[in-house]
């Protein structure tokens, strides 16, 4: 992978990435607060800390590319195009939610934006991703299927089956393992035979790499190269992105399995938003005031999203009988 010089960055794109990361973080913070205010219930997995990866990946995709993910996917769904208000309304179980309140936190979908969920069975999305990429090949397209999964999903049988099929048949799935070091409360090293998760690709002769998922610029550059290659050769790629979640596995997780120091180290020294802030300021691409204004705009957008979700009505109870079977 050749790396470009920093001066080659498009300023507007950098600013957009900064704004998106602020939006994702403020959105998830607001979601966490809304949960504690009991505005909604169920499972709720926040993505705080992992924004650099979501934004960096999204920044190199085109709208026709497909995306599928696990259950920590509110902001990936927003990145793919679902407006924050529709995601928030979905969390609140409202009729204006992107799935009319039938999906919830773990199941965001948008046919329009080619976001195929939002899945709650660890690793279950990986064969689905293979199928979408199969369709791309079937119709001779050059879209990419981005399949997010967590570190622990790499121990699921379906994942291996998906790697085998995509590698054997050249199906263009970009598997992105978000390695945030913990499968719920279990350190991945305690359950996994390899020290680096990209090694899973070795058994399938599949292209693979790793990337610092905490740095949005590194992610952007790295994934851009992968995607360009994939559009050409249609082959899958397994990317291990090293990242970190600041919050618990879900909102009810006290996080006793890791040290406070470890969390603080990431927040202080490797935070994706802080890293880009420094870059923007050092390269005189914006002022402190700009940064504050963009962050405020993100907060305002999330506030608006929550107000929209608050105001949205619940679906009619009788709607529970709809969408069981298609006509």
């Amino acid at each position: 992978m050749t790396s470009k010089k920093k001066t080659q960055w498009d300023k507007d794109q950098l600013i957009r990435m900064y704004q998106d990361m602020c939006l994702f973080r403020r959105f998830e913070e607001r979601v966490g607060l809304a949960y504690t205010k009991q505005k909604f219930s169920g499972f709720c997995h926040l993505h705080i800390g992992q924004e650099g990866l979501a934004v960096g990946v999204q920044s190199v995709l085109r709208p026709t590319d497909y995306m599928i993910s696990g259950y920590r996917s509110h902001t990936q769904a927003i990145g793919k195009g679902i407006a924050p208000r529709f995601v928030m309304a979905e969390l609140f179980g409202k009729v204006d939610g992107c799935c009319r309140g039938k999906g919830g936190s773990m199941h965001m979908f948008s046919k329009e934006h080619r976001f195929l969920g939002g899945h709650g069975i660890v690793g279950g999305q990986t064969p689905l991703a293979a199928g979408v990429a199969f369709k791309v090949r079937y119709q001779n397209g050059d879209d990419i299927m981005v399949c997010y999964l967590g570190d622990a999903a790499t121990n699921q049988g379906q994942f291996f089956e998906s790697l085998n099929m995509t590698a054997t048949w050249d199906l263009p799935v970009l598997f992105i393992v978000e390695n945030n070091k913990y499968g719920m409360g279990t350190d991945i090293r305690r359950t996994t035979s390899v020290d680096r998760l990209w090694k899973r690709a070795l058994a399938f002769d599949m292209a693979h790499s790793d990337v610092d998922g905490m740095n949005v610029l590194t992610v952007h550059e790295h994934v851009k190269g992968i995607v360009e290659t994939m559009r050409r050769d249609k082959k899958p790629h397994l990317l291990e992105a090293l990242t970190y979640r600041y919050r618990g596995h879900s909102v009810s997780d006290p996080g006793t399995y890791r040290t406070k120091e470890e969390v603080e180290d990431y927040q202080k020294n490797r935070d994706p938003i802080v890293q880009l802030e420094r870059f923007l300021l050092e390269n005189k691409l914006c002022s402190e005031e700009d940064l504050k204004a963009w962050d405020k705009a993100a907060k305002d957008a999330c506030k608006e999203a929550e107000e929209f979700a608050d105001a949205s009505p619940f679906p009619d109870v009788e709607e529970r009988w709809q969408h069981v079977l298609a006509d």
Partner: protein
Amino acid sequence: MAVLTMREALNQAMVEEMDRDANIFLMGEEVGLYNGAYKVSKGMLDRFGPKRVWDAPISECGFAGLGIGAAMVGLRPIIEFMTWNFGIQAFDQIFNHAAKMYYMSGGQFNVPIVFRGPNGAAHMLGAQHSQAYEPMLTNVPGVKVVTCATPYDAKGLLKSAIRDNNPVLFLESEMMYGFKGEVPEGEYLIPLGVGDIKRVGTDVTLIAWNKVLHRVLEAAEELGKQGIQVEVLDPRTLLPLDEDLIFGSVRKTHRLVIVEEAWGFGSVGAQIADRVQAECFDELDAPVVRVTNEFVPMPYNEAQEHHVMPQVDRIVQAVKDVLYI
């Protein structure tokens, strides 16, 4: 009318539908070069080429999920399981994914896909290859479950299943692939959710589907010789169930025996018995009787296997029980 085997009828259904719609493809273990473990897909690789007929790795969950993903974005896969006994490897994909997708996406992503393969025991294949899955398959909303017992039904139902916009779980039988029956030359469809009276009678209704239907027809023949007129009803589709046809028959005969080649605990037969007692309580002249597999894993030994499954003698006895003779 042409006389076809069940495998030929199923093959015709797939070929005709794939001729009609380029978005349909077939995937499964040995379906291509080997022409199908049971030759149901014979000739299809030659006809449609490797882009539309795919030999899958032995990864049932994986290729079932691949089919579901492809169906979410516009293709119409037919996924063959060499047997439904292997298909249960794919239960996560079928039930956690295919069956839920349309619902949890709020009506955005439907999954038009057929999972098909033999169901139930064949002959001396042992405990892991001899299970009948319809009680499990029908217990989850979001799918349709279809069975077939004649070449005519197999073709018309499979064509409808392929055209359906939902996941359809299609149950065949190893022992029936060679069964012959009349199949019309022209195109026809049998709608899902519609049962069929296989033999008209007045004294008692016998409900059965899939392979055991043929045992039931034998029993009906024998009972006929004894002057007992048995009505044999094949629901064909188990989910959704053609309840009106069942209730109509029970209201006519007032007696019901359900025969299934599955374990009886929490089974389709139990469901039918429940619906009949709720809707036809005053019409019944005897309690509903069920004949099912005995509640043991399938033994390998031939005589033991024979006893586990419903045979003519048990069916005949059940009919006599509801007639109090």
